[in-house]
């Protein structure tokens, strides 16, 4: 198991006290898997990605274990973690325009990535080899004139092109764990589709464990092998993509799938969208017991009082009293 997260808790210290954001996060991701982490804003999904890459802000409080190949990332010093960033853990961010260094050319940044890769694998750095690696990566990302792109600055590229450059970087770095935090949300629909296709193709080549964070469950369906549903900082459901979409077990997952406009729904005439009543909770004021209970159509007394643990049912992990809880 490449990535193993155990009992992860993340909170933030603020003027108004400590916000409890992520709690009881237990997750295993193997190499070659693409796990779609689905959550709305305020679910803590970005916090999860940042916790793994250890780029949380200064006022964060973290406990638990994030094991990568037997090493607990949370126990590393900042200096040791530096060596892990890039080749062990790499992150693609949502806003393409702030992802790259604006004062260095694309070529410089890709070759920098190549240098890091070479140094960490024990190879001697060779500028020619770095250049080759950069050009090849750009070709894999379907850039028609890679030599030209190498000379460009980020502000001369479109959002979609920047995301492809960042993907090229991850091809070069071949990280063990790739975290993509809403990498296509800022892109146009057709460009998003192009980038997603490239992403799928290359993920096979990279053999990384990929966490694809998104709020769009249809997008998660298209790209993932497995889906993890996050709500109010807790994992609510975790399972194989086809079965979770066809037979969602958790009421929140069911509500999400029923409430999101998706062309598949309208194949035979229009279907009224079911909406989940209420609002996602604020971390300042989390409900007692199960965090979803105020909005749950199947709420029982125990849900209001005690939070259900994560339990396993066949190939599904679920947090819900409807399915027992030991």
């Amino acid at each position, binding site marked *: 198991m490449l990535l193993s997260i155990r009992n992860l808790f993340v909170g933030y210290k603020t003027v108004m006290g400590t916000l409890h954001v992520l709690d009881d996060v237990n997750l295993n991701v193997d190499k070659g898997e693409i796990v779609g982490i689905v959550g*709305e*804003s*305020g679910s803590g999904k970005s916090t999860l990605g940042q916790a793994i890459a250890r780029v949380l802000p200064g006022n964060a409080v973290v406990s638990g274990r994030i094991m990568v190949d037997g090493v607990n990332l949370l126990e590393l010093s900042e200096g040791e973690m530096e060596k892990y960033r890039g080749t062990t853990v790499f992150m693609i961010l949502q806003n393409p325009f702030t992802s790259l260094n604006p004062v260095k050319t694309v070529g410089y940044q890709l070759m920098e990535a190549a240098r890091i890769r070479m140094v960490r694998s024990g190879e001697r750095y060779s500028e020619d080899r770095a250049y080759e690696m950069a050009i090849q990566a750009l070709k894999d990302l379907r850039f028609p004139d890679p030599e030209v792109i190498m000379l460009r600055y980020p502000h001369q590229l*479109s959002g*979609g*092109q920047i995301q492809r450059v960042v993907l090229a970087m991850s091809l070069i770095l071949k990280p063990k764990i790739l975290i993509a935090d809403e990498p296509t949300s800022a892109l*146009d*629909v*057709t*460009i*998003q*589709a*192009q980038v*997603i*296709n490239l992403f799928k193709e290359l993920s096979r080549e990279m053999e990384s464990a990929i966490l694809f964070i998104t*709020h*769009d*469950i*249809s*997008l998660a*369906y*298209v*790209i993932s092998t497995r889906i993890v549903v996050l709500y109010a900082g807790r994992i609510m459901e975790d399972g194989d993509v086809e079965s979770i*979409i066809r037979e969602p077990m958790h009421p929140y997952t069911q*509500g*999400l*799938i029923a*409430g*999101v*406009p*998706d*062309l*598949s*729904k*309208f194949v035979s005439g*229009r279907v*009224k*969208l*079911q*909406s*989940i*009543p209420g*609002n*996602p909770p*604020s971390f300042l004021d989390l409900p007692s017991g199960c965090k979803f209970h105020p909005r749950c159509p199947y709420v029982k007394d125990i849900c209001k009082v005690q939070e259900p643990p994560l339990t396993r049912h066949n190939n599904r992990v679920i947090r819900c009293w409807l399915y027992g809880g030991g």
Partner: protein
Amino acid sequence: MGMAPIIKTENLRKYYLAYKIGLLDRLFGKKPAWVRAVDNVSIEIEEGETLGLIGESGSGKTTLGKLLVTLEKPDGGKYYFMGEEVTEDKIPWVRQQVAMVFQNPYSSLNPRMSVKDIISEPLGHFDEGRVREAMEMVGLNYREHGNKRPRELSGGQVQRVAIARAIVKRPRFIVLDEPTSALDASLQAQVLNLLMDLKEELKLTYLFITHNLAVAYYIADRVAIMYAGKVVEYGDVDEVFKKPMHPYTQLLMKSIPTIGRKTLEPPTGEVPSLINPPPGCRFNPRCPYVMDICREREPEMLSVDKRKVACWLYK
């Protein structure tokens, strides 16, 4: 549904200057470059219908929406509201009867005003009765929420305030610019259903701007697809979705992630420049069916059954 079109545009145009031309630039003979945001658009919206305006960024859909509520003035073509041509002097009259709901709920409300003042603003004076009524219609409570500031509310509630503000003076026509795109998934359905209920109750006409085909399918009666400042396809929503005619529409539908279909088939290439659009049909560099004529002449809007398509394939 009424018979008369409440909104009609004929060859509407809106161009923006691509960059500022200063004194020195004029001296050196710098030529102005124009961003053709809306280029010869002719559409009609019937009373009581919802027209879905679909397009990606740079398609001109937001600009068209702003033109229809007179937040922008056209550079060419004609705009008819309720049968009257909208000239400069008619603008206040139009503004009395239209409203707009914007994409980002938080930036569309004055952060320093209370909810009840925000909703009351279009009325010109504070009217508690009408504010209460509007709030109730969108599912908000006057006593609980009236005195709050936008930042104290959640995203869904803030968008409801924006909707309440839009309906408080009972307009005839509302432009909704991606009203659910910035909302959480679990709230989208709530707000969409609310919008549909309000339309029935208050006999409204909507222009619903979105990039999300599924949302458009859910809410619209007819759809117009925009690309690079032009309308490329236009017709009844069921027809367009079941049998998309324009190549861009077809590829757009194959680019949307849809449950049950694991593959996406987008068009190749980038979104075109609005300053220097490709000659002929704007979609020609990316079109899988491109012919010679496509690169030379812009296609006119052709009528096929009750559909309108701007594509040489159907000549």
